[in-house]
């Protein structure tokens, strides 16, 4: 079988009904520049199903109040919805209990929290933090800041030409001074799925704690933080069909207990006097100020949405569309795929010979096709391949093979302009 025939067969085997899913996302019927929208930028941010929009609308219409503070009915409703979303998040990643879930502004916020609270209170000069060459800037810069503050050293595990982390180099760079290993679960720039279970195990054998950046993983893969045995797992609502401005930090309960607060303010305290302030318990200790309650409610609905669909079927569908996209783009003369790791999900990064990705992006947009072009907040990955940018088509649960056909036809137009 040809690769496309194989992927068609794989797609047919799954009972997953992508057209039903598409009807759940109102924006997918939008037209851009007079063309039907083909949204291939979900790794940037995903679209939102009607149930998420409805949950937020209903919250503001029927329950809007501040949480944990008032005795009135609306506050009770708001608190129940907010804490309900926390419990849903715990179930979503199989956390041992809801107290191990800190609600944040997003993945970046979660990583900064761990760096500034756990990292700053435990690291000493000469300690080492180990990341990989694949990381998003948000899993690089917070650690660089921490290094400046503590005198710790940032070490980087290289990747090979296909975009896989070099596991031999990983083992070699783990040292008795390694205190924190921080790695992505799925690469946003290349789509590489990293062997996180193995990464965690080897780090633990050296006594390091492990943070996994799951921003690009949770929309695609079922995640079990207890099976992974990671110490911290962070992700964002907006990449998994929820609203922006909300994220999750799962933390191992014993670590969260020992960590100092990240920010000071309301709701994170038990008692305040000018002489001494007692902090609230975990996780509230880490949630200073009025949070994005409406967003958290929408996030809870996004978790419900994902938990209700056939996730194995959805993943098989997405992987089949990715395989189809890969084979179609590979057939285009002058196309070069960046990142061909053994295990990938959701992302196809590529270049067209003689065409700058930005120019391709503009022309694709006029054809209704939304992709991201640029360095994808992963400049070291671009440097690794000696390039400045790629065209990145990234998939969500709602994308179809027909949309890939539209992409490929639009790429032909791009080539036509620059022929």
């Amino acid at each position, binding site marked *: 079988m040809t690769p496309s025939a194989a992927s068609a067969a794989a797609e047919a085997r799954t009972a997953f009904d992508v057209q039903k899913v598409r009807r759940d996302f109102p924006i997918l019927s939008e037209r851009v520049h007079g063309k039907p929208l083909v949204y291939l930028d979900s790794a940037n941010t995903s679209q939102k199903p009607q149930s998420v929009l409805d949950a937020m609308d209903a919250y503001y219409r029927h329950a809007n109040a501040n949480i944990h503070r008032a005795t009135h009915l609306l506050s009770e409703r708001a608190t129940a919805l907010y804490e309900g979303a926390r419990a849903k998040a715990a179930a979503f990643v199989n956390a041992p209990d809801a107290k191990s879930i800190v609600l944040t502004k997003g993945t970046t916020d979660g990583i900064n929290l761990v760096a500034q609270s756990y990292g700053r209170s435990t690291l000493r000069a000469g300690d080492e933090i180990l990341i990989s060459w694949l990381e998003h800037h948000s899993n690089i810069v917070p650690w660089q800041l921490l290094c400046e503050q503590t005198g710790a050293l940032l070490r980087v595990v290289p990747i090979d030409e296909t975009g896989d982390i070099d596991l031999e180099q990983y083992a070699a760079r783990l040292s008795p001074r390694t205190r924190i290993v921080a790695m992505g679960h799925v690469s946003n720039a290349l789509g590489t799925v990293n062997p996180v279970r193995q990464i965690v195990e080897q780090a633990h054998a050296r006594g390091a704690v492990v943070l996994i950046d799951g921003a690009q993983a949770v929309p695609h893969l079922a995640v079990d933080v207890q099976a992974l045995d990671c110490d911290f797992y962070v992700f964002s609502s907006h990449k998994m069909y929820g609203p922006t401005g909300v994220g999750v930090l799962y933390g191992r309960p014993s670590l969260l207990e020992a960590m100092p607060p990240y920010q000071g303010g309301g709701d994170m305290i038990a008692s305040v006097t000018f002489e001494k302030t007692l902090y609230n318990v975990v996780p509230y200790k880490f949630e200073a100020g009025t949070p994005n309650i409406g967003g958290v409610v929408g996030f809870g609905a996004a978790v419900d949405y994902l938990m209700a669909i056939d996730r194995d079927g959805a993943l098989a569908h997405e992987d089949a569309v990715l395989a189809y996209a890969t084979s179609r783009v590979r057939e285009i003369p002058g196309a070069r795929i960046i990142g061909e790791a053994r295990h990938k999900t959701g992302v196809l990064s590529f270049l067209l010979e003689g065409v*700058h990705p930005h120019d391709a992006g503009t*022309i694709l947009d006029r054809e209704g096709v939304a992709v991201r072009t640029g360095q994808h907040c992963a400049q070291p990955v671009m440097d690794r391949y000696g390039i*400045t940018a790629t065209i990145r088509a990234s998939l969500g649960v709602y994308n179809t093979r027909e949309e890939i056909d539209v992409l490929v036809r639009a790429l032909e137009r791009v080539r036509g*302009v620059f022929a």
Partner: protein
Amino acid sequence: MSDLTDLYQEVILDHNKRPRNFRTIESPSHHAEGYNPLCGDRLNLYVQVDSNVITDVAFLGSGCAISKASASLMTDAVKGRTVAEARALFERFHHVVTTPPDQPVEDLGKLSVLAGVREFPVRVKCASLAWHTLKAALEREPSTSTE
């Protein structure tokens, strides 16, 4: 597609493929590096000013068709002009590419091919990168170093 052909006109495609003055200048009197962190585009601009006249100007770098063509057209446009004329041309060019597409703009000759960028707001920065780099280079004290 009509506005696309407005943007990717023959002149732009030609200057992208065969950029003019795409080289370095040994020990130029002025130099600046332009960088667009959004797309990672980089541009090194070399300017030789003698008695207040731009006697030579060249650039090297990687970028999209718009930024490369704009840099190429700019070098042709400012060579032989005084520094003051080049600065004035920067202002006029900047005005043209930032004026809303439904409003008339002055004719800047060859440079006017870049007026099509007004239909593509996110690409205005691409067209402006070389000009901002020129402005930065000219604002600097002439370099006497040979490094």
